[in-house]
């Protein structure tokens, strides 16, 4: 799956008074490029309004770009949309997208028929998928969709995306609002589908923990442009080398933090921890050297150090850093 310099503007008319209207142009995408290889899960991250859903819609042939090019298995998503549609499975929302008066199975029969599947093949596939996503064990097979919980709806949506066994999946926030067991089930399925079945998956989420767990690579977009991309580890390494050292003490000797500041240490957030310990944080670019400085100073002041923790940057730090910066590294 390739996207090159995708751009899209939305023009909306807002009525001002009785006869006048005001035209508003929103630049949703300003040249987004990304690539998803076979068997790879790529996370598409970004704040609200960054252009994630617009990108997914273009790739799933539901929106025409103003410029740029996107293809799936070599088929242009604009010129060869009908071919692309045979190759993709999409999950755009969790809470709706099915007919409420049909059961889960009937809904899948409906969409399978729309996807051109033969009856026998379809029934076998539906049985397999309902089992795979765990709807059989939840008793959701012959229950009306309108009676489904959010978790069951998400599972059914994933089953639909997999109905025709497509090599490419486009999943837009597939675990949004789900309870932990359902979210975990979806995550593990996505991982399995990529590693065992070699599916290419584009996955958007706001949950950084989830993205780190599921995705091989991450593309971070902000204000319609790619702000950063790489594996989670690569992205973390792009952060300025600032680490936070948390120091936990039994009691805080008078003048200790002032002494540390005199020695050039950047001390922050001095307070009492929940377990009765005193804690303060030190920001540094040289964590190993600074830890020994802290220990020497604390011992000289008679402090009793309980533990010292060096915090590694998280994907959330990466997200915040790049979205605040807003420029590609």
């Amino acid at each position, binding site marked *: 799956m390739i996207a090159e310099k995708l751009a899209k503007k939305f023009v909306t008319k807002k009525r001002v008074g009785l006869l006048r209207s005001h035209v508003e142009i929103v630049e949703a995408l300003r040249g987004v490029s990304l690539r998803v290889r076979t068997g790879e899960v790529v996370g598409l991250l970004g704040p609200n309004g960054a252009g994630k859903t617009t990108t997914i819609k273009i790739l799933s042939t*539901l929106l025409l770009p103003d410029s740029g*090019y996107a293809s799936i298995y070599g088929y242009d998503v604009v010129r060869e949309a009908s071919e692309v549609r045979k190759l993709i499975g999409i999950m755009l929302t969790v809470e709706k997208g099915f007919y409420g008066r049909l059961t889960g199975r009937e809904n899948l*029969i409906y969409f399978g028929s*729309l996807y051109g599947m033969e009856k026998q093949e379809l029934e076998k596939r539906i049985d397999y998928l309902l089992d795979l996503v765990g709807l059989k064990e939840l008793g959701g097979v012959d229950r009306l969709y309108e009676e489904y919980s959010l978790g069951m709806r998400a599972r059914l949506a994933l089953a639909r995306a997999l109905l025709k066994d497509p090599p490419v999946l486009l999943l837009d926030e597939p675990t949004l609002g789900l309870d932990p067991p359902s979210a975990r089930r979806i995550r593990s399925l996505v991982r399995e589908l990529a590693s065992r079945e070699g599916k290419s998956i584009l996955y958007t989420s706001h949950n950084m923990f989830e993205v780190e767990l599921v995705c091989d690579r991450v593309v971070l977009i902000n204000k319609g442009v790619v702000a950063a991309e790489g594996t989670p580890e690569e992205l973390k390494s792009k952060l300025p080398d600032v680490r936070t050292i948390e120091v936990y003490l039994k009691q805080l000797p008078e003048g200790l933090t002032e002494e540390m500041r005199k020695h050039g240490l950047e001390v922050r957030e001095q307070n009492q921890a929940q377990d009765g310990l005193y804690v303060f944080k030190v920001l540094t670019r040289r964590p190993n050297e600074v830890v020994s400085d802290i220990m020497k100073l604390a011992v000289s002041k008679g402090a009793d150090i309980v533990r010292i923790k060096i915090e590694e940057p998280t994907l959330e730090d990466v997200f915040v850093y790049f979205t605040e910066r807003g420029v590609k590294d």
Partner: protein
Amino acid sequence: MKNPHLKMSSFTLPREVLKIRSFARLIRAEMVLVYADFFRRKSLVIMYLAWPYISAAFMLMFGYSIGSPQFFVERVGVEPPLFLMVGSYLLFSIMTIVDDIMWRPIFDESSGVLPYVISSPTNVVLHYVSIPVPRFTLSIALGAAALLPISIVYRGFNGLLVSLTVVALSILSAVVFIPLATALGLGLYITGGENWRAINFLRPLLLTMTGVYYPRWLMSLPLYLLSSLLPPAHCVEVVQRVLAGMAELHKITVPLALAIALSILYSPGMLKTSAMWEFKKLREGVKV
């Protein structure tokens, strides 16, 4: 600058339309949708079966309060209960099918199904043509419930033949209405957005013009010419002529030929509006 990719080629009717199997699959899908919903809602079944009776009864009460049944028979040539029952049945059969087509884009969009329909490999036109097919079988059931008893009461054994003829012509009315209904419905959505109010305005106008409650041959010339533009109006005229015993061969074949010809004439409009509607959706982005 215009996007070089924006060509209409991918939105034109593909060869797949002519493939019976892909059409059969779509009909299967629509059967699942219509029947599952229909048989799970007892109130819907009751309403469906009772509607022609209620509507005909209301018209009869209104008619008897302002005029004489004898005058109606002299002028129209059919007993009022039979005429109005047939009219109500025709109206309901055509209306459910037209509604299915016209409301579907709005319903699919509000239920979040539309992105999955559009992103399926199925052609939009083929999909819209398949939507009313399951209703035809329901029309037959409704014909048995609404038409058969009253036709037998008034026409004896011939009533059975009359009922079969009316059911067959009601299905034909709906079929020939599909291109125009699709073109008008999608055309409205293209120009005015997905607006159910516009459909609510258009629907009764179309159905009144078909002449189900008023014999077409008694219409004033301007109204007759206007209603002649609607393909089902010609089928309705044939039904009324059959009931009135005015069914000479040329008075049946000519209107039926006209209905089919008009339907064919409107088909390019249906294809064009379908393509334009899909193009508009894709340009704005299909709502999720």
